[in-house]
């Protein structure tokens, strides 16, 4: 069941909310059990056969958590990591591993028909992190009910945010969490509406262009300059609106049930360095990679060279987490290199005292981040290296640059035209027939929303950082949204819901990871 489906919005969500608040009136634990049941039902809707997997995963991890908590024996932690990564490895990486062996050797091992269980990367990581924290004494052992709810809570189950036990488990122990709070509910509803709007109106509209582009590349020999930038920009915007829309919906749903989830996006394309980009994009994954991979590898504790190496390894693993393919490995590697360069440049700019806040630095920074990230997205989206290579060649102008006819000037006016015979042509920007000038406005509007509009967390005044979560939660400082914002939230809700009637729901991109 997708958050952006009529089944979910019209039936599952209202029914689970009503059941939850009725059971909360009866008893605190009964409310949790109801929420677990709703979450498992939600999961089984996709493929009932895999319900056993998540239940088995929860039970096994709960038993292991008991042993780790009691004995503090490192062996149990290793067993936990081995089992969790073993299951993830089997479902997500087995065929990739076999394919790689077959391609690089004379072997011909059969691959298996495996369907990747939904959300496996997310709930596996959450449970490993819980065990590590128990071992490090950073977390307390919870009851089976709390643990089950922490893992299976449906708003974050399929595609995050990757919640940390210290953010959720304390909330599950506080009885006021499940008392109906109208401020939280209405904020959640508005945030859900914004997320829905981002997904069904913006991301799905742009998806038409990006899918059309990446599908056409397979049958095209030379990708031209404008088309390649147009197609990859479409994907850069699609993945941002798709995933940030999903995260908004997840956080909004959490709020409706009274549970505060951490924010996952903070206008990443507004970052002026790649370091900042990763502090704004998929924040909870970056946090996980930092706390459970980068820091255990040594972090920045053993000099610059080791730090850069650790960064690179972390980003490669981040790439592999996204999918079992060499293109994801390369995507992670590219971002690793970007981060190394970015850290090096930062150390140099500190030395020369360059001010980050200068207006032109901000513009230059944002442009460079956009260019670097968009080029890297090619490897993330392309099915294989050949396709990625074709697109990057087009983006770098290897196949010439076609410009609109109206830019053409008499040949003796511009020096540019000396080059133009081979390199720059004035045949019209879109010569491949994939796009046309009418497609430009939607991308332009999406770019304006990305760069000039406040992000949804700011709009609903939600600060989902760890400390802010506990403050908001414990002191009930959750601000009520003003009437104007609620009104706009309602309008966005209608616009998005209406769109679901005329279109079939499309999957979120991160459902595949």
């Amino acid at each position, binding site marked *: 069941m997708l958050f952006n489906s009529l089944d979910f919005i019209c039936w599952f969500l209202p029914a689970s909310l009503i059941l939850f608040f009725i059971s909360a009136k009866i008893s605190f634990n009964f409310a949790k059990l109801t929420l677990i049941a709703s979450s498992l039902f939600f999961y089984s809707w996709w493929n009932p056969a895999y319900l056993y997997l998540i239940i088995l995963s929860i039970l096994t991890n709960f038993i292991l958590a008991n042993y780790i908590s009691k004995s503090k024996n490192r062996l149990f932690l290793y067993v936990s990591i081995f089992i969790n990564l073993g299951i993830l490895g089997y479902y997500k990486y087995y065929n990739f591993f076999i394919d790689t062996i077959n391609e690089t050797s004379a072997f011909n091992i059969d691959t298996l028909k495996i369907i990747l269980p939904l959300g496996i990367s997310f709930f596996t990581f959450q449970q490993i992190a819980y065990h590590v924290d128990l071992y490090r004494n950073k977390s307390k052992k919870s009851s089976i009910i709390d643990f089950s709810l922490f893992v299976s809570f449906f708003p974050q189950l399929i595609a995050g945010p990757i919640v940390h036990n210290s953010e959720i488990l304390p909330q599950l122990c506080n009885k006021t969490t499940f008392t109906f709070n*109208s401020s939280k509910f209405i904020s959640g509803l508005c945030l859900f509406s914004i997320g829905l709007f981002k997904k069904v109106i913006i991301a799905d509209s742009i998806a038409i262009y990006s899918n059309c582009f990446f599908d056409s590349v397979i049958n095209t020999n030379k990708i031209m300059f404008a088309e390649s930038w147009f197609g990859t920009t479409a994907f850069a915007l699609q993945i941002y609106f798709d995933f940030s829309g999903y995260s908004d919906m997840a956080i909004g749903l959490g709020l409706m049930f009274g549970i505060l989830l951490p924010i996952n996006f903070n206008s990443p394309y507004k970052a002026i360095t790649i370091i900042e980009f990763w502090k704004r994009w998929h924040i909870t994954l970056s946090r996980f990679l930092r706390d459970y991979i980068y820091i255990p590898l040594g972090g920045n504790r053993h000099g610059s060279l080791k730090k850069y190496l650790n960064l690179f390894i972390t980003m490669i693993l981040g790439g592999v987490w996204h999918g079992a393919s060499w293109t994801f490995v390369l995507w992670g590697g590219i971002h690793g290199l970007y981060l190394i360069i970015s850290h090096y440049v930062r150390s140099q700019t500190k030395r020369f005292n360059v001010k980050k806040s200068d207006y032109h630095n901000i513009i230059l920074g944002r442009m460079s981040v956009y260019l670097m990230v968009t080029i890297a997205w090619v490897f993330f989206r392309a099915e294989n290296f050949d396709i990625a290579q074709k697109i990057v060649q087009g983006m770098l102008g290897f196949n010439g640059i076609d410009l609109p006819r109206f830019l053409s000037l008499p040949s003796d006016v511009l020096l540019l035209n000396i080059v133009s015979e081979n390199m720059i042509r004035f045949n019209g920007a879109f010569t491949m027939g994939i796009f046309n000038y009418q497609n430009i406005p939607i991308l332009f509007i999406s770019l304006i929303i990305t760069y000039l509009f406040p992000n949804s967390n700011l709009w609903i005044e939600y600060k989902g950082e760890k400390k802010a979560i506990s403050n908001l939660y414990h002191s009930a400082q959750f601000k009520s949204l003003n009437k*104007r914002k609620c009104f706009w939230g*309602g*309008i966005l809700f*209608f616009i998005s819901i209406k769109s679901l009637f005329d279109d079939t729901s499309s999957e979120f991109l991160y459902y595949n990871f």
Partner: protein
Amino acid sequence: MNTKFQTFLYFIAGSALGFLIWSYTLFSTEKNPCSEAVFNQHIIESKISILKQAKKNKIVVLSGSNALFGFNARTIEKELKIQTINCGIHAGFNLDFLLWLTNNYFTEGDIVIMPLEYNIYKQNGSKPSRSMVNIVHGYYPKYKEKLSFIERMKFNLTYSYKDFADLLYIKYNPAFDQKFIKKWFINNHGDIVNNRKSQQSDQHKLMLSKVNLNKVLTNGLDKSCQGFTRLKKFFHQANSKGVKVVGAYPNLCYWVDYENYPSFHETPKKIKSFFEEHAFGFVGKFKDSHFTNDYFFDTENHLNHEGVKIRTDNLILNLKALLKFDVKI
């Protein structure tokens, strides 16, 4: 009133206002068609005008576009000496709407052959297709009067933003001429004639070269599907008017992959037994409706000129047998 409750009311008010604006703008643009509706109305108009002028004791092939691109009514008429009309319209319209458009023109002694597309049997009235919503909004708003309030609301919400923008563009752009919207040439028997293989584009060839399995044939049908219920009602009406209804299989772009699905053979059997049980009969074998992709024109439902010839000759033989003509093989 509690302030927090008021904010919730504002949210509801926002949604309600959105709904009202949408409903009003849609209501005020009724009978203004978008380009897709203009295209489909051209087909409907041609068929209805032929039906209006037709005499008694005629043969009507009624279905979606698989019949439009599946049979040649002129050849059937020539062979059987019975006036024949190709009333293939569009599979995106649901059965109820197809019958609402045509049922009044069927009179005693008529034979209605229905090679309905498999998805027509499954069609869910509560979620009308985009083509159906566009045509009803642009030309037949009266059809909505027979729908319940909820169905009407769903109908209005199904009108897409894209088509709405297109509609406004057509309505308020004085330079736009509807005549420029692509139209097919349809002869006075309702047949389409510009489906020659030579007119097939590279894009169509590429599209038809990919395996595309019909979901109804792979997933199966049960007799509770809305199409069956609506058909039973039609059979009853037809019977009382003295109209004979005959079932047939639609064209199928055959891929060997179909054989992996048990419902591929079960579904056609269900359809055949349904017609044999409730209607006048059923013509044709399932295998005879199979064609390789070479015989298709632009989509996997539309046969090219050669495909139409084979299918029409086959139907003529089957009809002769059914109507107890002197069959010479």
